[in-house]
């Protein structure tokens, strides 16, 4: 009997649309990767290698190796001179190799950066280490008010082009929704060689403490409400671009997966639900998904994929901006 959940993503054969998204707590421990596979993960996107962070890590390493060194006769150094073989890219490559060794499912490497730099070298090394695909995570806070959006987009597209040309692997681009014309950006990614888009990136947002007058960092996991934005854009893009679309953000149940598949997602990436409930949640989502398919008599995912995309849904306008105004005007709840 064929697997009703079988799908493809970036040309990879997956046993289901349940892909573990990039998050350090989920994928930095090889033992946990095996657990995720046992619980039904169809592929795993490893946690991101932050290219700018590599330099900072090395600088920090150098600083601590040198701090206080070679000045006091009894202590010419304060830390052992061990070789940091797993620092930076080398460590990430070792993790890919280890994941590849332990897992039978596809392993997707995630590269994150904000500026042109070592992308090509890093991508080539990642490919050589055995990754099955690459997820490029392009988001950075564009805080420099002297740079135009066009300039930043051009730079990002150059990175996509450079990486796609450098490696024989399929490349997905993970984007934030904060583009003036997101559809245009998505199209250009496809033209630059990307095989897929992951929608959307999600970041720590700062907060402030009004008593201590300090800034604070919060980690808030996504919830179901966060599905709306990717749902809209997957629905808008499905069938219009030669790209596999991955939904990311707020996926926590079988129904969530169905919803995303219906608007056109090829796969869904799960993170917050696993952090909240543990790896077993994958099995739960999978069971719910199978149950739903059986209940609705679907033999495979392609039967429902994209049925509610903008191109195919009964009310295409619902995906467009004006709908927001209508939603407000139809709001019937208490005002205060």
């Amino acid at each position, binding site marked *: 009997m064929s697997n009703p959940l079988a799908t493809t993503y970036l040309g990879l054969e997956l046993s289901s649309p349940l892909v573990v998204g990039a998050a350090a707590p989920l994928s930095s421990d090889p033992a946990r990767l095996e657990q995720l596979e046992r619980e039904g993960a169809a592929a795993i996107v490893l946690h991101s290698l932050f290219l700018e962070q590599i330099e900072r890590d090395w600088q920090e390493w150098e600083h601590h190796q040198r701090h*206080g060194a070679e*000045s006091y006769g009894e202590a010419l*150094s304060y*830390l052992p001179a*061990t070789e940091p073989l797993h620092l930076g890219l080398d460590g990430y490559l070792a993790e890919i190799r280890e994941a590849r060794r332990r897992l039978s499912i596809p392993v997707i490497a995630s590269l994150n950066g904000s500026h042109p730099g*070592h992308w090509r070298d890093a991508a080539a090394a990642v490919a050589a280490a055995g990754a099955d695909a690459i997820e490029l995570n392009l988001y950075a806070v564009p805080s420099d008010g002297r740079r135009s959006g066009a300039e930043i987009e051009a730079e990002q597209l150059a990175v996509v082009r450079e990486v796609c040309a450098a490696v024989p692997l399929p490349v997905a681009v993970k984007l934030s929704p904060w583009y003036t014309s997101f559809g245009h950006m998505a199209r250009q990614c496809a033209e630059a060689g990307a095989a897929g888009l992951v929608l959307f990136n999600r970041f720590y947002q700062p907060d402030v403490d009004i008593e201590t007058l300090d800034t604070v960092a919060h980690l808030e996991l996504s919830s179901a409400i966060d599905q709306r934005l990717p749902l809209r854009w997957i629905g808008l893009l499905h069938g219009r671009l030669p790209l596999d679309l991955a939904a990311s953000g707020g996926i926590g149940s079988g129904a969530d997966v169905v919803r995303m598949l219906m608007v056109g997602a090829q796969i869904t990436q799960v993170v917050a639900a696993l952090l909240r409930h543990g790896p077993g949640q994958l099995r739960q989502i999978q069971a719910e998904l199978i149950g739903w398919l059986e209940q609705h008599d679907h033999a495979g995912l392609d039967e429902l994929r994209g049925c509610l995309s903008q191109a195919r849904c009964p009310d295409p306008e619902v995906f467009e901006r004006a709908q927001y105004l209508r939603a407000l005007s139809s709001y019937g709840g208490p005002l205060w």
Partner: protein
Amino acid sequence: MSTRQAWIDGNEAVARVAYRLNEVMAIYPITPASPMGEWADAWASEGRPNLWGSVPAVVEMQSEAGAAGVVHGALQAGALTTTFTASQGLLLMIPNLYKIAGELTAAVIHVASRALATSALSIFGDHSDVMAARGTGCALLFASSVQEAGDFAAIATAATLASRVPFLHVFDGFRTSHEIQRVELLDDATLRQLIPADLVAAHRARGLSPDHPVIRGTSQNPDLCFQAREAANRFHDATPQLVQQAMDRFGALTGRHYQLFNYQGHPEAERVLVLMGSGCGAAAEAVEALMARGERVGVLKVHLYRPLAGEQLVAALPASTRAIAVLDRCKEPGSGGEPLYLDLVAAIAEHWPGAPPRVIGGRYGLASKEFTPAMVKAVFDNLTASQPRNHFSVGIHDDVTHRSLEVDPSFNTEAPETFRAVFYGLGSDGTVGANKNAIKIIGEGTGLHTQGYFVYDSKKSGSVTVSHLRFGPRPIRSTYLIRQAQLVACHHWDFLEQFDLLELAAPGATLLLNSPWPPEQCWAQIPERVRRQIQAKGLRVFAVNASAIARASGLGRTINTVMQVCFFALAGVMPMPEALAAIRAAIHHSYGKKGERIVASNLAAVDAALEGLQEITPTSASSAPRAAATADEPAQPLATPAHLEAAPAFVRGLVLPQLQRRADALPVSALPCDGTFPTGTARWEKRNIAEAIPVWEPDLCVQCGKCVMVCPHAVIRAKVAEPVALVDAPEGFRSTAARDPHWQGQSFTIQVAGADCTGCSLCVEVCPARDRREPRRKAINMAPQRPLREQNRSHWDFFLSLPNPERRGLNLHHINQQQLQQPLFEFSGACAGCGETPYLKLASQLFGDRMVVANATGCSSIYGGNLPTTPWSTNAEGRGPAWSNSLFEDNAEFGLGFRVAFDQRQARARQLLRQLASTLPQSLVDGLLEADQSDEAGIHEQRQRVAALRQQLQPQLASEPATASTTTASELLELADDLVKRSVWIVGGDGWAYDIGFGGIDHLFATGHDVNLLVLDTEVYSNTGGQMSKATPKGAVAKFASAGKSTAKKDLGLMAMTYGHVYVASVAMGARDEHTLRAFLEAESFPGPSLILAYSHCIAHGIDMAKGMAHQKQAVDSGRWLLYRHDPRRKHQGLAPLVVDSRAPSLPLTEAMASENRFRMLRYSHPEQARALTREAQQELDHRWDLYQRLAGEGPTP
């Protein structure tokens, strides 16, 4: 034959051989031998095999005594075993050395020889340690150079296996252990040929085994024991020949030939010098120069000192020898001469054919005192006298017992073709590292012989390093500091004022300055005294603003790249294009995979350095134009800094010369004869090392006292004063109305001793008060020091003139009031941002006027007692902590001795008081005997009573003739002060408390005596560079735990609690300061043993030291460090003695660990291990929290 070369120091040369030739290494840190163990541990953690393909077992022990026990045991079990040590560490091994030698066990112990602590500790090199071990039965083989040290490590191993006599392989601490030379390395094939497999097999076969059991280590009776000792004679007798055979075999394999005694000099020498160790290099150089003058002199270098081959020793001397001077690098007070001298006298008496030459002996080079060719000449000159001075010293001026020889400093033997350069660096600015790199570049690029020797500082912050580099076509044997440099580099402008760095500049030399001034202003900014030296010596001066270039290139404060380029540009030791290519290659090699930004920054600095280097020529901009100095103009003496003009004579006479780096010239009479010094000298130093200092904002300040409390250097102080007292305050002196109702109507001020500040900014980090409109602005902020310097000085002086508050009136449980107590621990040389010193300062504030400190060797004994200046100080009445350091291992016992003595003295005083009671007012006697001295008021009143007692007793002394009562009164006067409480504090780090001194601490607890133990727990041996102790937490990387500490931190507090009668507190000032304060007060008031475990962040944790207090808080928030107090007095109230003051852990351990590099490092080197250990640590933490909850009666019962 191997031709592979490396530019390494003696420790590494030895470790590379010893690692490959052993299976077990038992190690323990001690300067200057620690790096050998560190190398071994690092290589083992990488899985590097020894000669036989196995990874040696490297075991850190709790002390050298423990290490020696493991060595003995491993040898008995048939493993090839070694250890590395020095000084007191070797002394702790002596009992086992007798055993190991007595049992004829092959082993080599590598000793970087170091002075023994006598009236003072010294980390520097001499032979007093190994000479103390000369009676053990071990062979003593002395290397005199880095090359020899590496070679002798192998030769000694071959010889010990052949002879079965264990060897001490000795090379001089620092001069050899830390000198960098080009070394021909020994490859595995050579070692295999040198170490016969059958001898290794024989060694293993002698190991204990139940398959062929024997008994060893019996007790013997008088009928046998003597004969048994003699039964081993033939092995010792045979050893010299076996050593020579090993040397010969080594020579055949490597081309480097050694003898037991190497003679060098005139074949018909009349005067011969005999010595051992690194001094042989200077001696050989002097002999060569004197021979060139036609003198018939020679030097005999002793390699094998034990067993002494007297006949060969004598035979190695030319038959023409008429006079011999034997130089010992040790001192044996009260002896008929030092050891080598006496041995030579005996050898000559036994073996010299015919009329023997005259033999005299002397001492040189103690504690790394310089030993130069000029001193060698002085010794030879002495031999020409009709009555040469015997038992002399050379290298110092002994104006007390007049035993020193006169030295002609102009005698110079430096080879003219050798290029010599001296670099003055500041702290860890990269100067030393860059110079080590330059040695390699030049050595590899030119084939020149190279030598690097580095003089380090005893300060842990703002230290001065002096690098001495030689490059030349011939082997460099100059085992002494450079006296005439062709290039002097000054990497920190302020040095020009502070000491005479041009003293070492040869005429016509080059001076390279890191100058903050534009080139056109540079000459005018050079101090007048230095300008005249430049002119007199005809120096060329070059300047570069290395600090600015480094900053602009993105290198921060690290100026090494810039200064290295300038050095190559000026030195001319290799063509500049090649030098630049090598520098750039080194940059790519070092930083290539660390990101292109860091590579680009360094490359940019290289280019900018060349562009920025400018020659400075005299200009008329000089502030005091005078005629240019002439060549014969002597250098003007360094001026006494203005702030020292009013200093005590002791400070001007003994401290100032040290600060100005000219104390080598001080005579013997300048030194105390028993190691006793006045306290409180750090206040005179005024180092001005901080680039930025705290500036107080009165309008924002909430007057909480936190900044004052955490300041590691006691430079931030608060006072309250009547407003009228501030009327004459200097301009800009800040104050504001006191907020505490206790001081209603008074003014409050915080002032900063800017000249003593290290700029750590801990104070800013802990300040809780922000400007609500501009939250970046706190109530205390850092600002550049230089523009504030003058005003700050006047403010500080005025502040000191304000009265300190009456101690009795302060509520010591409120930090804002308590912190007004005068600290009696100030301005130490600890690291900037030190986590230990705030605790010591707090103790000194609370109890300093009645405090006696027993201080274990370690960081706290160095910043607390290392000359030139010391921080323990006194109050206006002249009272303050009395401080002493005995050893590392015995501090608890040492402090217990204080307690027992004080108790005994007080008991005697009370006895005398009772005897004289009828002659004294009853109320006074009762008051003195029944005084409650549990608080400040009680102490004050008792002091008043003692003063009254003195007044009462004084007239009784005047009665004539003396009666029994007079004698009693006289004795009571002597002991009257003992009626005031003595607060005994036993202080040390975790290396002492958890490891080497634990046995003593445990016993001290058992005695129940009233002492206070303060353990400054940095969780590593900080002073020796961060080696693992039993306090090191699981998962942390430390030296000797390169693969991460795999066991949990020892719970010393819990162990102490099990006694039931010990007060125990675990504190972390950065987590909760008021808890720390409360614990100190409780501990001191507890009438029995008290233990305070004080979490101390440390540079060895790999943290931003400015955020040290935040790291302390993270340790507590994660539950890794608990706050608690265990007070046995609570049992009397029906309460559980333990109170857990921490809240339940709120921060995941993994997050707290990730914030410190010592934990992160393991993820980078052994990620699997890191994950496993972190998981285990979290489980253990949870278990410990539950346990403590139950002990405190707050958790679920099991």
